[in-house]
């Protein structure tokens, strides 16, 4: 019996690596600590009522952001391991197998489990508040989306201590990712982790489109919508067009692996090129999905800290919509070298270049928002300004890559690596940081320490350039991506070493960020105004943190920069705008079903990873049961009485 158990454990758990044992111990200790703390402080009920079953968009947003920062830590740690392995030629820090797993998880985590949730967190926090809504259109669905993302991410992450991680690259190209190339469970963890969280992402896309189309405050016509909300709309349109493609592609790969089909195999007439096309039909829009909301954040931040209206509103909206549509017609530029023929390559080269036009226009519009403004430079603005040169350089290398015949020399080299890190970090992540610092007081009610924030900014940015500029050069010197080691004879050492130093600087920047947050929690400098930055849009017209119901009375919008104009009116001594009478507020009730259903999905995925149908089938049955239970649940809403609103408003205003 004991023998059997030991056999099972040594098969089930990842063994043989001291790093992993260290991680095992850390995980066990952390779990025990959390369980102990929750029990000791009697917080289980609080956790269940306030977080696990919440459908409040602000809470869901906070959970997204916290998860994303944890994932940033894991993905960043992966990155530092990769950089350490590449810091010297013939380095023996990671074995090739381990290296392959680490770069795969780094990519998957950073895009799908860091960038996406951080972005969804900002959607959740800002969109309903910006458009004067009480919540998103489908609060239940919103909570379900979050839990699907969370358990999808957990399923993927647990592979590093159980069973072994995926090691075929973040897009998992077959035939390498097929049973013949990757017989281990890693690829199945990848398929189900991404699949489950992908369903959540698709539902978020639907939810926010419905929210933006149907839930805007009276008077907020399309042309009065804040730019961040526009960017969310553009991004969500791309989500609902692209994510079904991902779902189908991964499902087909799973059918190949689990049922022995021949869709993408080397064998039996399967065609891997089909997978590469399909995955990039999702993958290319995906990079615009993550960068468009960042563009929205920059637009809000630039206008606020220039104390000036956003320049070229119509042009900005048009540019964003154009990007969201054209991004669907450029996927083939990820594999010009597949031999598609000159006509096909020309089409996709030109469609790719075309995207640089609206993107460039946006840069001009941001610059001219600052022109004849009054610029101040707190951290959200610093990240926004740092984004501009970073994106200009990254955009330029992007245009270079789009020239198909030249791409034959850049493809899969470190030049490409440097390019996409520059646009994804300099474009998307800088924007999320700007947004996080910008809306932080609105989310939590206290401000972040600016001094430490500036340290984080400078260390991170200097580290960024030291890390990625050398990679352009070493790519042009013939270094290809995903190699686990290189020899002294190649002459790549100096540049790689510099890049590693830069990577660690970024790591230190991240520590500053953590210190900044910890310090600010300790010294809690409250935002008593509700409008710490001199904001322009509706979210700054309510107290910080936003009350449960957001707006006591639904605002009536008469201007694009509604709150800014209202403040101008008040400063000019005019009467405050007439508010509606208070009336009971209709609110959604908490629900445990999203959490439970996501656990069922997790169970089903886990069972399929290990070929255990006796776990997978009950998992799917659980999904069906929770769906049914929700369909027959009519007790989903309640009202907040006028007295209660008055009491809460008075409490919030007392601090004003």
């Amino acid at each position, binding site marked *: 019996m004991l023998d059997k158990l030991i056999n099972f454990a*040594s098969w089930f758990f990842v*063994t*043989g690596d001291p790093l992993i044992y260290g991680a095992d111990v850390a995980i066990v200790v952390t779990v025990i600590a959390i369980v102990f703390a929750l029990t000791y402080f009697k917080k289980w009920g609080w956790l269940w009522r306030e977080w696990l079953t919440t459908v409040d968009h602000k809470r869901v947003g906070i959970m997204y952001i916290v998860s994303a920062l944890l994932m940033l830590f894991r993905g960043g740690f992966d990155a530092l391991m990769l950089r350490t392995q590449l810091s010297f030629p013939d380095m023996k820090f990671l074995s*090739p197998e381990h290296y*392959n797993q680490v770069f795969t998880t780094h990519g998957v985590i950073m895009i799908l489990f860091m960038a996406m949730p951080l972005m969804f967190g900002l959607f959740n926090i800002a969109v309903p508040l910006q458009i004067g809504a009480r919540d998103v259109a489908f609060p239940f669905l919103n909570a379900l989306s979050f839990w699907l993302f969370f358990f999808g991410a957990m399923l993927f992450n647990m592979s590093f201590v159980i*069973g*072994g991680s995926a090691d075929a690259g973040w897009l998992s190209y077959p*035939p*390498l990712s097929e*049973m*013949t190339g990757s*017989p*281990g*469970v*890693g690829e*199945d963890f990848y398929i189900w982790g991404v699949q489950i969280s992908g369903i959540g992402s698709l539902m978020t896309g639907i939810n926010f489109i419905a929210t933006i189309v149907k839930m805007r405050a009276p008077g907020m016509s399309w042309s009065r919508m804040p730019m961040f909300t526009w960017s969310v709309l553009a991004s969500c349109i791309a989500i609902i067009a692209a994510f079904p493609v991902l779902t189908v592609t991964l499902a087909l790969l799973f059918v190949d692996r*689990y049922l022995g089909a021949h869709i993408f*195999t*080397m064998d*039996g*007439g399967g065609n*891997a*090129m089909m997978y590469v096309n399909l995955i990039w039909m999702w993958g290319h829009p995906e990079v615009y999905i993550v960068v468009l909301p960042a563009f929205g954040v920059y637009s809000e931040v630039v206008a606020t800290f*220039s104390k*000036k209206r956003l320049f*070229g509103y119509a*042009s900005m909206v048009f540019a964003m919509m154009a990007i969201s549509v054209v991004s669907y017609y450029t996927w083939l530029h990820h594999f010009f*070298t*597949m031999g598609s023929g000159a006509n096909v*390559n*020309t089409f996709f*080269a030109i469609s790719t270049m075309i995207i640089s036009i609206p993107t*460039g226009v946006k840069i001009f519009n941001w610059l001219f*928002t600052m022109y*004849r403004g*009054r*610029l*101040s430079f707190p951290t959200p603005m610093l990240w926004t*300004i*740092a984004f501009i*040169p970073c994106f200009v350089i990254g955009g*330029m290398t992007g*245009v270079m890559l789009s020239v*198909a015949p*030249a791409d*034959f*020399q850049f493809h*899969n080299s470190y030049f490409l690596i440097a390019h996409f890190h520059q646009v994804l970090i300099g474009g998307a992540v800088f924007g999320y940081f700007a947004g996080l610092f910008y809306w932080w007081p609105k989310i939590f009610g206290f401000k972040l320490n600016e001094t430490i924030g500036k340290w984080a900014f*400078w260390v991170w*940015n200097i580290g960024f*350039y030291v890390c990625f*500029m*050398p990679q352009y050069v070493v790519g*042009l010197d*013939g270094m290809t*991506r995903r*190699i686990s080691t290189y020899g002294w004879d190649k002459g790549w050492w*100096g*540049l790689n070493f510099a890049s590693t130093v830069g990577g660690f600087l970024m790591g230190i920047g991240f520590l500053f960020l953590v210190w900044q947050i910890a310090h600010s929690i300790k010294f809690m400098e409250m935002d008593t105004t509700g409008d710490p930055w001199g904001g322009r849009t509706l979210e700054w017209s309510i107290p910080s943190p936003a009350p449960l119901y957001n707006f006591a009375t639904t605002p009536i919008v008469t201007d694009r920069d509604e709150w800014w104009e209202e403040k101008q009116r008040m400063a000019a001594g005019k009467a405050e705008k007439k508010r509606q009478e208070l009336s009971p507020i209709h609110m959604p009730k908490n629900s445990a079903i999203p959490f439970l259903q996501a656990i069922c999905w997790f169970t089903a995925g886990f069972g399929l990873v290990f*070929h255990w149908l006796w776990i997978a089938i009950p998992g799917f049955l659980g999904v069906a049961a929770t769906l049914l239970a929700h369909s027959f649940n009519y007790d989903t809403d309640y009202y907040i009485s006028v007295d209660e609103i008055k009491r809460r408003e008075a409490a919030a205003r007392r601090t004003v």
Partner: protein
Amino acid sequence: MKFLSIVRRFAAFPMLAAITLVAAGCKSMIVFDPKGPVGSQQRDLIYFTVGLCLIVTVPVLLLMVWILWRFREKRSSEAPYQPEWSHSTKLEIIWWGVPVVLILVLAVVTGRYTHELDPAKPLRSDVRPVTVQVASLDWKWLFQYPDQGIATVNYLVIPEKTPIRFELTSDGPMNSFWVPQLGGMVYTMSGMATTLHLQADEPGSYMGTGANFTGREFAKMAFTTEAVKRADFDKWVADAKASGNALTEDSYRQLARPGTSGQLTFASISPGLFHKIVHEYSMSRGAPAGIGRKAITLSGGLATEHTEGGQLAPDSEPSVHAGHHGHMIHGSDSAQDQRK
């Protein structure tokens, strides 16, 4: 002057980037040091694209620095402040128009060069091309010279000033064949043959590498490309033919097993081997399915396996648990074996 220092530090960003590039540029980058007509044209195209982009990017960066400096908030600013100014048709026309024109130019040039540098298109030359059939294996390169009847592993010898027609395929995952100093890469894919034409203009030893990830020993998939004078090439072929080693179907199967390899030379090749490699995959030999089979974990197989550095794969049959691919391809019954 706090803001002054902020602005100055922002200006330092692109400077920092430029310094890094220039410092590193002292050592020439091989993509910018091409030794053949294809690589040269690609380099020129890169220079042209950079030049065109700089027309926009340099003014944008300068404009940014100036705006940040001029309109920073300070007590006695004489800079104009127009908080309501948010539209200018004239300016919009300029910054939509200029990029449109530049991209139009770039599109025309790209379209022309995409056809001109189509890798499947033979190079213009009076010299008769030499054909090399390339197969990416796990984890080594096999080069067959069908006209000369010889083959090599992990090194290429080509005559200078002669167009080389590469026919590319893969016996295993998708890889990419890249000799940067001769020109750009093309994928190698199982079940099909892609074509790439390159030429070396002068003798020399050029680095070649696989550029698309293929698993464990992917980093070892580098090869050297020796461009030599025609007479030396002929002599090398004669020497190779005299070396005695034959690439039969059996020795190919041995070679194709997962593992790394040193440089090898074969005096003869089994006729039609390249096409066999390509067509092998049109038939189904029973793909392994996960259903009903015990899942393979990292601990169960990969972790206990060791790399065979510098050697061909070991003679022993790969174990059922062995995580690498290949054993299901070459053993016709192994898929059945897997279903224990």
